[in-house]
């Protein structure tokens, strides 16, 4: 019914195109074919879009404003005035171990989560019966629906007692390995336990993105591999994994971003410390930026708050870099597959 009278609002555009120079500007207005309410609505929508960008900038700006007192103050004065820094010589000296702890926990979580996520993604894309696949995918999505505070509760009260003997065994038998060295914690409220909970939490996003790219593998390449006499796994290794590699990398980076910023699991499970320590079975060694903010913020004085916001700024910067990189890979991939 629409095809017979196709281009909307032909009138003014058609007439003005006959006249030179002067009415050109009017013509442009007419081409977008809106006036009054329509124009207002368009501007409203565009404004909302622009607001997103402004919001992102505002996050950075307001964090900088509130962190500035701590950032600009000379180190010795800051150390003297802020109780949080009693064991540090400067703001950087305070943030350093926190960044270390954050990155260590997130990296360990990623090491646990990525292989499992790739496995689940392959399971739903290439192994599970077609009819079951989407249901099973939904089960994994349920993991993302569990609030982080519940994971924290579960990690601290259920998981820790279960894994403690395992950690003790690791410490006793594989203690020569630097990560398992040190004095094993009797409560297992340690970084390795945290990393496992974080891994569970980032599993859904890594799985979802990986599954998408695995499903996009061209049937042509899968059949080429099978026709050469490849087993199912060999087909996956020849056709699916190379095709999905960049997608899996960006999925892993999205997961990393989540793990870096996760607060509650670390806050509720980890017995914190401020050291550059690789002892992930020992209590009181590491702390993450996010958990430290949540722990200290309620009792901090204005300058303390400023210091904590400065550490938050560091976290924001790190996650921003990771996320931008991950999204850029995804976007470039999209262009690439579109061109084919």
């Amino acid at each position, binding site marked *: 019914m629409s095809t017979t009278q196709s281009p909307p609002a032909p009138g003014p555009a058609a007439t003005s195109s006959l006249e030179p120079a002067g009415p050109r500007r009017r013509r442009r207005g007419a081409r977008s074919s809106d006036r009054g309410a329509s124009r207002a609505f368009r501007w409203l929508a565009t404004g909302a879009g622009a607001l997103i960008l402004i919001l992102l900038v505002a996050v950075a700006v307001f964090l900088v404003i509130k962190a500035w007192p701590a950032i600009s103050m000379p180190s010795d004065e800051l150390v003297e005035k802020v109780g949080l820094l009693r064991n540090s010589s400067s703001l950087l000296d305070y943030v350093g171990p926190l960044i270390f702890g954050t990155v260590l926990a997130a990296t360990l979580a990623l090491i646990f989560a990525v292989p499992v996520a790739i496995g689940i993604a392959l399971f739903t894309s290439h192994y599970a019966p077609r009819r079951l696949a989407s249901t099973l995918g939904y089960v994994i999505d349920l993991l993302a629906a569990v609030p982080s505070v519940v994971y924290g509760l579960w990690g601290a009260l259920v998981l820790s007692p279960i894994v403690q003997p395992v950690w003790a065994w690791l410490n006793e038998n594989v203690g020569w390995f630097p990560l398992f060295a040190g004095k094993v914690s009797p409560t297992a409220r340690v970084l390795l336990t945290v990393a496992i909970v974080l891994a569970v939490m980032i599993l859904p996003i890594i799985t979802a993105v990986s599954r998408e790219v695995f499903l996009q593998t061209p049937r042509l*390449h899968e059949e080429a591999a*099978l*026709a*050469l006499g490849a087993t199912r796994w*060999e087909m996956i290794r020849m*056709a699916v994994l*190379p095709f999905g590699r960049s997608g899996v990398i960006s999925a892993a980076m999205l997961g990393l971003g989540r793990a870096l910023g996760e607060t509650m699991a670390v806050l509720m499970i980890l017995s914190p410390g401020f050291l550059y320590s690789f002892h992930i079975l020992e209590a009181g060694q590491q702390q993450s930026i996010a958990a430290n903010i949540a722990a200290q913020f309620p009792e901090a004085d204005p300058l303390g708050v400023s210091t904590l916001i400065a550490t938050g700024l560091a976290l924001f910067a790190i996650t921003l870099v990771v996320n931008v990189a991950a999204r850029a890979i995804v976007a470039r991939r999209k262009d690439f597959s579109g061109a084919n």
Partner: protein
Amino acid sequence: MAQRIDVKDLNIYYSDFRAVADIEMAVEPRSVTAFIGPSGCGKSTFLRTLNRMHEVIPGAHVQGTVAMDGVDLYGADVDPVAVRRQVGMVFQRPNPFPTMSIADNVLAGVRLNNKRISKGDAQDMVEQSLKGANLWNEVKDRLDRPGSGLSGGQQQRLCIARAIAVKPQVLLMDEPCSALDPISTLAIEDLIAELKSEYTIVIVTHNMQQAARVSDRTAFFNLAGTGQPGRLIEIDDTATIFSAPREQATEDYISGRFG
């Protein structure tokens, strides 16, 4: 290196739908057999049962026997992966692995069975296979470049090189020229003529001139109507099929009255 194939009482299904019915035919070794027929008559589906590629589609299965030199490919103790090793396949659209170099593409199948081939052996094998596919002279200077950089016709010959590198008994070709220009098509047809001295070749084609040019025997498939299974109407020497077919339907199809 080449084996005969005897097909008996073969019915091919997609879930409950019978796509191809009651096929009975023999494919002679060291010759080219062409399958012709209108779209949807099941010739490609049948081709894919000759190396058990049909069953990779969920719900797809067959009844009957496909015997290669007397051994039933659908026998209980036969491994589909091993079947595909003995029966190579070239697809409608060239499909070299985009992440692999030209040389790695050729060796892709070989490496499955034999992870550690010496560098010299590998080079020999690449050269032999590419020469066998009439591609060596065109790519010998850029063996380490990605295969996706080649032209369509070259890519298809690369796929043929990849298929013959594993030294199969039979080579199946599913409309190998339908995505190619006339010059590339000619190169592939020449290649088929050379390959038949060593392999049993089965080719599905939409192009009757091509069937007449390259094949020794031709099989004509047809279906009675939509929803009906495709059937083998007749198979005979290509010359006979194109000059004096036994069936009226074959004559109608060949003379261009339908299809």
